[in-house]
């Protein structure tokens, strides 16, 4: 990837959590990542690892009991966390958009697709459009999402469409405003595997053709491998490894990454892997040092004292683990 390329989105050291009855959940600890223009970045993590919290922080849709202790979210250099509501809205209208896991969630069940497409097109355009223009654009975006029989789709209600079709409609709607950055949160997880395959191929084609940057959040290693250029591995609210896709899969460094890859049952057989013993630590009182310490077979004393930094071990391949450090001085 061109090093001089512009960083569309850069998240720097965000610390985010929630206030609950039992205390404070300190979820994200110094999470940083970035996406270059036209780049496809993947964030791999299992449930409760904080990836959704990170995305909500970026999109500024955190719930009312959330706490942001620090950090910045820079969109083309400007801090989104400090922006006015008006500026954030403008970004959402013109530059970035999000697709969610549940294909039905972004679609209002009591309106036809037509109405919803029209609304989005009208809303995200600064100029006044005629009815014909709106209709033309609606058709255009639906076609871009490879939907057949566009008129029939426009006249349908969401419940009349299959999961795959709904997700394509979501993609079409997000293309209306996501001219620069698209965040896809587990877009294929709720779909059949054959349909997920179609959707991921479609997404790839579109973002590559339009040079749209994309952040793909998923728990599926296989999906990430076939799709993104660079991968961030998240565990318990921290980034443990970053690498170009090829590098990550040919040479996984962090023990969590390795154990995660080992947990996936192989098509060629070999029995069912044991998985990773133990459980994710509680965010109420997370480990002071490396958060993987409770489950790591290679843990050392230094791991519990302070969090390991992300160090570059190979070209663009970073890992946060004392196995690869000489120790912090």
């Amino acid at each position: 990837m061109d090093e001089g390329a512009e960083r569309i989105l850069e998240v720097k050291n965000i610390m985010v959590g929630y206030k609950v009855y039992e205390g404070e959940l300190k979820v994200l600890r110094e999470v940083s990542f970035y996406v270059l223009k036209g780049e496809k970045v993947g964030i791999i993590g299992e449930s409760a690892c904080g990836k959704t919290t990170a995305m909500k922080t970026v999109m500024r849709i955190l719930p009312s009991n959330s706490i942001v202790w620090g950090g910045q979210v820079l969109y083309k250099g400007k801090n989104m966390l400090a922006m006015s509501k008006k500026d954030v809205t403008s970004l959402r209208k013109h530059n970035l958009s999000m697709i969610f896991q549940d294909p039905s969630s972004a679609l209002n069940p009591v309106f036809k697709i037509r109405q919803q497409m029209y609304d989005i097109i009208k809303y995200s355009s600064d100029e006044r459009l005629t009815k014909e223009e709106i209709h033309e654009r609606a058709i255009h975006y639906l076609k871009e999402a490879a939907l057949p029989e566009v008129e029939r789709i426009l006249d349908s209600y969401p419940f009349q469409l299959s999961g795959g079709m709904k997700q394509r409609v979501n993609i079409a709607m997000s293309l209306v405003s996501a001219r620069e950055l698209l965040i896809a949160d587990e877009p294929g997880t709720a779909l059949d595997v054959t349909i997920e395959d179609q959707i991921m191929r479609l997404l790839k084609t579109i973002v590559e053709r339009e040079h749209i940057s994309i952040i793909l959040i998923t728990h599926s290693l296989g999906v990430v491998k076939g799709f993104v250029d660079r991968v961030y591995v998240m565990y318990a609210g921290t980034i443990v490894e970053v690498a170009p896709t090829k590098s990550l899969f040919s040479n996984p460094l962090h023990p969590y990454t390795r154990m995660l890859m080992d947990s996936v049952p192989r098509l060629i057989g070999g029995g069912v892997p044991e998985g990773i013993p133990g459980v994710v630590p509680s965010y109420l009182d997370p480990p002071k040092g490396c958060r993987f310490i409770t489950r790591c077979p290679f843990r050392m004393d230094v791991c519990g004292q302070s969090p390991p930094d992300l160090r570059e071990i190979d070209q663009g391949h970073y890992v946060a683990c004392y196995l690869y450090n000489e120790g912090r001085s």
Partner: protein
Amino acid sequence: MISLVEYSKDVKFSKIAHNYGKYWYKFRNNKLSLLGLGLIILFIALAALAPWISPYPSSAGLYVNFANSLKPPSLAHPFGTDELGRDVLTRVIFGFRYSFTLVGVVLGITVIPGVTLGLVAGYYVKRWFSVLIMRMADIFVAVPPLLLALAVASVMRPTLLHVMLAISLAWWPWYTRLVYSQTTTIRNEDFVRAARLMGASPIHIMFSEILPNELGSILTKISLDAGWVILIGAALSFVGLGAPPPTPDLGTMISEGSIYLPNFWWISVFPAIAVVLVILAFNLLGDGIRDMFSSSIR
């Protein structure tokens, strides 16, 4: 090695404390709910202690003192006196007594049968008795409580008991409907199916599996209903269908005092404010109860 039985007892107790603590945390999140709770506690205390804390207890009964009548609010009579010389403050406090009694009886009679019918109808959907129950509920819902009370009053003497009966008749179907609609959804959940497949008895499924999931909305409704019952009771009294004089009843007081407006305003206005406050308090309390049972974000 600690005996297993003892260990589990300890854990159980602290767990129970933890669970109630969680409910309280969610409740006190909203300051207004705390206000509602505070007011309700205050009013109930007033009602319970009425004979001992009201300044002129005799005003609540048969009492006439024309020399003292129609006196405006003063230090001796903070709410003034009415046309018969009775202390309005005392009568308002006793009025709470009547109101809360009404609430207690009406909800006491209607909630349990209403909920049970709703559970049965919702669980055994499509059976003949479920349909029968729901159509009966429809009928009673269609008649406004006021008209129903008037109908009852025209047949029997308008006493406190009959008023409560009339309101109860109009009230039970709302619980049935609430529980019915929730039950029809919950019965399709996996855990109900699992219990059915296990061979659990319908009684167990209805009351131990389904009902606990509906408690939140039932309790919220009870709180909001309390306000409504008081309002309807006051409305009935206002048109003369309430408890007979000289019973201190907020609606009656508003009604009887209305002919003295606007010059001797305190006779109607203070009871009216009391009605408004108590209904508001129940509403705020209801909001808090609803918050208590809503699932938290994490």
